[in-house]
């Protein structure tokens, strides 16, 4: 008997942003999430929705409870801007908390969950954190948290963000942080729901990081990450070469990455734990196993 959780994937990107990333060879955020979830749980059934699209229909409260989990992607919107696309997603996050369906998400998703539950996000005074978030350290609470079972206490992860969580709502627990970003992961407990949010991106791999970087080379050069376009192209090529051939230990060493980044089982321990510790228990409680 297989385990067939139903997971709703929210791809928070605007259509225009999705098109831009697709043109640069990047996989859509929702598709990356489906790939990650089905890798962790091969029989998971995932539905992807795009809340920013005109006429997008989000499941109502009753329909939400047909799902065993809600997984949110990152996105290039800004959570503290008062726009219809942002407000729709905050409202939907509240509906998820009310429904009690467990949530998981990266970057924007963690910020949305925090704001929906009464917390605050602001621009990170350290600027953009890009590429590899280094030296993420679990808090004592994170070390004891089920999301980090089997994870080392200090690790690196893929990242790309300019905003950060500055205030978590009461009932939330900060699980990890690094020197750049004080809140790298958080567990938000609100109303009937639980949401595990990461500021970093376990769904990325080196290829996706390379494509995202390629799409942003000019912006990143302006921000000082690359001296010129050629330096950016060279960096992207290094990421892609290492992605194609993990035996290139010389490149891994030059880029300063190890198994935290290269080994999917290590990189995605949080996702597997979310399915085991929150999604499957929800299925059982709903009589779906």
């Amino acid at each position, binding site marked *: 008997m297989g385990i067939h959780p139903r997971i709703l994937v929210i791809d928070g990107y605007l259509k225009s942003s999705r098109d831009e990333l697709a043109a640069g060879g990047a996989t859509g955020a929702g598709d990356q999430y489906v790939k990650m979830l089905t890798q962790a749980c091969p029989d998971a059934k995932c539905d992807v929705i795009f809340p920013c699209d005109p006429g997008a229909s989000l499941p109502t409260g009753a329909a939400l409870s047909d799902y065993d989990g809600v997984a949110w992607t990152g996105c290039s919107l800004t959570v503290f801007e008062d726009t219809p696309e942002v407000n729709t997603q905050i409202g939907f996050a509240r509906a998820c908390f009310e429904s009690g369906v467990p949530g998981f998400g990266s970057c924007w998703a963690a910020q949305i969950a925090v704001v929906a539950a009464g917390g605050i996000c602001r621009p990170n005074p350290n600027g953009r954190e*890009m*590429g*590899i978030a*280094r*030296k993420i*350290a679990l808090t004592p609470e994170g070390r004891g948290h089920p999301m980090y079972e089997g994870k*080392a*206490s*200090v*690790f*690196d992860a893929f990242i790309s963000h300019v905003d950060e969580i500055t205030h978590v709502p009461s009932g939330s627990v900060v699980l990890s942080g*690094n*020197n750049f970003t004080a809140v790298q992961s958080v567990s938000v407990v609100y109303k009937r729901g639980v949401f595990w949010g990461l500021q970093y991106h376990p769904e990325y791999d080196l290829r996706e990081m390379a494509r995202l970087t390629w799409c942003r080379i000019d912006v990143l050069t302006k921000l*000082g*990450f*690359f*001296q010129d376009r050629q*330096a950016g192209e060279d*960096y992207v090529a290094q990421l892609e070469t290492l992605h194609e051939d993990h035996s290139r*230990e*010389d490149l891994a*060493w*030059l*880029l*300063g*990455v*190890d198994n935290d980044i290269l080994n999917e089982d290590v990189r995605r321990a949080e996702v597997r734990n979310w399915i085991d510790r929150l999604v499957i228990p929800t299925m059982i409680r709903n009589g779906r196993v």
Partner: protein
Amino acid sequence: MSISPRILIGEGNTRERNEKLLAAGARTGSGCYQQAIKYLFPSARVDILMAADLDTQMPDGKVLDDYDGFVLGGSGLNLPGGEHDPHVRQQVELAKTVFEAGVPFLGSCWGLQIAAAATGGQVSVNPRGRELGIARKISLTPEGRGSGFFDGKVGVFDSPAIHFDEVTHLPSGSTILAENGHTSVQAASIKHQRGTFWGIQYHPEFDLAHIADLVRSYTELLIGEGFYKDNDAALKHAGQMDVLHQNPDRQDLAWLLGVDRDVLDPRIRFREIENWIVHQVLPRMAYRT
């Protein structure tokens, strides 16, 4: 008021090796330490003892007891397989003398290994291979967090490193203060006879320019060990480290090389050396005068 501790630095390399380094325009290990100590305490009175040379003599006919502290840094020698090498034996005996005299003792890399071997510990080849360039994600143990050795350091940090062997067994009376995924003993304290030793497996006394010099000096060996694809890759990487050392504000290079203030800011990088002088050397100086 100028503070003038008297510190003896042991040079762990033999004359032949040092002549090669100097001829290539590089500094010796003891030269790096001297520079670091003078940066922190410009009035420190520093002497160098050629600890590996068999015809060595104490500077100006002084005895160990004339000093407020003794430092032993890196060496190209190896304890595993080198147990009967007189250049190695001599340094183990010297370390025993330092413990007997109760002179505050600081060691990095080889210095830590020699102190462990002199007090009944063991050193073996690291099964993960050479740790080169930057030791990443060094994490303080609770004992390290509480030790004065790490005052002002964050709980997780990077530091320059180059080593092939590691301490596997410490004598009783020792405490492990830091670790990372590559090396279980990144820092330790050893209490033995009248002495207290503080040691680190990494090299806070090295800067990026010295790592670059070592890369150029050991290029063939490092290509053989898989760190570089070819000579060009090694020279390019060494060149990048030199440029960043000269221009620490080159954020693009810092980001590409994956280094931050832990490595680039000498006030942070030298903190263990500073703490050793403050907590171990200065009190001895006060009691002597």
